[in-house]
C-alpha cells in the first residue's frame, strides 16, 4: 500500500488521464500524448459540442459515471465545475486525483486553462501549451487590429438569453470589434432579454446560433417572425468554438470579424 501511494505521488507525468467534460476533452486532445488519454467524455464525439469530435473517434469514451471511470484506474481525472458534481466527489473520495477546470469567462481565462492543462500533463505537454499560447496571442493581436466601424450587436440565443459583456462570448465580441448591446442595457451578465426590448434597442446585427434538427420551444423563439423582419439576423456557424475556453475561440472571433467587415461593406 505504502509503495503504491509513494509511486502515485512521484508520478509527475500522468499516464492514464480521463476527461469527463467536453472542454477538458479538447484541451486534453490538444496537449496530451495520445497514449496518455485513457478515455474522453460522452460528448467528445458530438460535432455540435466539440471542435475535435472527429479526432475523438480515436480514443475510448467513458459514460461519465463514477463506477466505470474508477474501473479504468486513471491517475488523473480532469473535469468541469458543473459536470456531475456527485460523480466528482465520489471519485475524489475513492482516492483519485481530480482536477476541476471552471468555465472560462474571458479570453484570459481561456489562456490560463490551456497553460494549466499543459502543466498537469508533463513537460512535453507544457512546451506544446507554450507554443499554442504564443500562436494564440499573435492571432488575437491580429484579429483585434482589424480596422473598421464597430456595429452594435446582440448575441441572442436559446430561451431568449443574451450574452453579457462579462462572459467569454462578450469578451470574444469585444475582441472582434463589436459593441455588445448588453453594455448599454446594463446587463454585464446577460440573461433573458424580452423580445420587445431587443427590438426596441434596434441593434445593427442580431447573432443567433445554428438551429437544431429537433424542435424545442427554447430555440423556437429564434424563429419569431419579428426577428426575421428586422433583417439584422445573422446565424453563427462556429457554434462549438463558443462553448469552451480553447484556442478554437479565435475561430469564432474570426467569424465575428468577417461578419463585422461584411456589415460595414453593406453600409
Amino acid at each position, binding site marked *: 500500500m505504502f509503495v503504491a501511494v509513494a509511486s502515485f505521488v512521484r508520478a509527475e507525468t500522468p499516464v492514464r488521464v480521463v476527461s469527463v467534460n467536453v472542454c477538458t476533452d479538447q484541451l486534453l486532445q490538444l496537449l496530451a500524448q495520445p497514449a496518455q488519454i485513457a478515455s474522453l467524455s460522452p460528448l467528445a464525439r458530438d460535432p455540435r459540442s466539440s471542435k475535435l469530435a472527429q479526432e475523438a473517434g480515436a480514443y475510448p469514451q467513458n459514460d461519465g459515471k463514477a463506477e466505470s471511470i474508477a474501473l479504468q484506474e486513471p491517475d488523473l481525472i480532469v473535469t468541469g465545475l458543473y459536470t456531475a458534481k456527485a460523480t466528482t466527489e465520489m471519485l475524489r473520495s475513492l482516492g483519485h486525483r481530480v482536477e476541476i477546470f471552471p468555465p472560462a469567462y474571458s479570453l484570459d481565462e481561456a489562456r490560463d486553462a490551456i497553460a494549466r492543462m499543459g502543466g498537469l500533463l508533463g513537460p512535453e505537454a507544457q512546451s506544446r501549451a507554450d507554443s499554442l499560447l504564443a500562436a494564440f496571442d499573435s492571432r488575437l493581436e491580429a484579429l483585434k487590429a482589424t480596422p473598421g466601424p464597430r456595429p452594435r450587436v446582440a448575441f441572442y440565443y436559446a430561451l431568449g438569453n443574451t450574452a453579457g459583456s462579462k462572459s467569454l462570448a462578450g469578451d470574444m465580441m469585444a475582441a472582434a470589434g463589436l459593441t455588445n448591446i448588453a453594455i448599454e442595457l446594463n446587463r454585464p451578465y446577460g440573461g433573458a432579454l424580452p423580445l420587445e426590448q431587443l427590438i426596441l434597442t434596434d441593434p445593427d446585427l442580431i447573432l443567433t446560433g445554428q438551429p*437544431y434538427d429537433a424542435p424545442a420551444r427554447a430555440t423556437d423563439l429564434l424563429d419569431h417572425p419579428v426577428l426575421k423582419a428586422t433583417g439584422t439576423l445573422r446565424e453563427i456557424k462556429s457554434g462549438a468554438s463558443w462553448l469552451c475556453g480553447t484556442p478554437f475561440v479565435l475561430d469564432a472571433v474570426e467569424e465575428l470579424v468577417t461578419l463585422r467587415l461584411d456589415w460595414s461593406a453593406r453600409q
Partner: protein
Amino acid sequence: MKPLLALSALTAALFLASLLIGYSPIPLGTALAALFGAGDPLNAMVMQDIRLPRALLAALVGAALGMSGAAMQGFLRNPLAEPGLIGVSASAALGAVLALQTGLAAAYALALPLTALAFAFGAVLLVVLLAGPRGASLTLILAGIAISALAGALTSLTLNLSPNPYAASEIIFWMMGSVADRSMSHVWLAAPLILGGLGLLLTLRGGLDALTLGEDAAHSLGVSLGSIRTRLLIGSAAAIGAATAVTGAVGFVGLVVPHILRPLVGHMPSRLLPASALGGAAMLLAADIATRLILPERDLKLGVLMAIVGAPLFLHLIYKTRREIG
C-alpha cells in the same frame, strides 16, 4: 345581463392595458398609433407583432379555460372539475409535445393543435367515464392525479429523449404555461379551434341548467344526456387542446373563475358559461400583466401566478366538500 356587461368592460380594459404595459416603456399615444402601423416602424413591430399576439392569446386561452371549467363543472355537478386539475391540460400538452417532437407539427401546422385536441379529448373522456354520471369529488381528484402524473411523465420523457439539448428546459413551459413572445401565427393556429370549441360549449347552456336537477329530470325536460356529453367532450377538448398547444398548460383558471362568478350569475350554469369565458380572459390578461410587472427580468410563468391564487381556493373547496369525499 349586468355581470356580462361589467365583465366585458373589464376584459376590454385589461386587454388594452396588456397592450400598453410592456418591458419597455412606449408612450400611450405612440403605442396606440403604432398599433395601427403609424410612426416608428420599430414601435409598430413591437405593438403589432409582439404585444398584440400576446394579449390576444392571453384573452383567448383564458376564455377557453374559464368556459371549459364552467361547462365541466356544470356537467359533473362538481365545482372541483377543472381542466388543469383533472389532467386534461397536461394531456393536451403531451399531445402538443409529441406533435412537435415527431416532426408532425413541422409537416402540417394544424397537426399541433389537433394532436393536442385528441389527447385532451381522451383525458376528458376518461374522466367523464371514471367519474360517472354525477362526478364524485374523490374519483375526480384521484383520476386527475393519475392522468396528470402520467401525462407529465411522458411529456418529460419525450423532451428528455430529444436530441436538442434545450428541449428538456421547456418542460417547465409545458407544465406552467406562458404567452410571452408568441407570434400572430400562434394566434391563427389556435383561435379558430378555441372559438369553435367555445361556440359548441355555448350550446350546452339549457342542458346544463336542466342537469342541475339530475339526469332523469333533465331527460324529462327534453335534454339528451348523450348529446350533451358529446358536445362537452368535443367543445372542451378543442378549446383546451388548441389553447395548450400554443401556451402550455395553465392551471386553476377554470377553477377560480367560475367559483368567483357563480354567485354573480345566480349560480345558473347557463349564465356562468359566457361569464366564465369573459372572466377567464380577464384573469389571464391580468396574470400576464402581473408577470411583466412583478419580475420583468425573468420569464415568470402564468401557471405559477395562477397556482398561487388557485391552490388555496382549491384547498378551500376540498374543505367545503370534504364530507362528500369522506
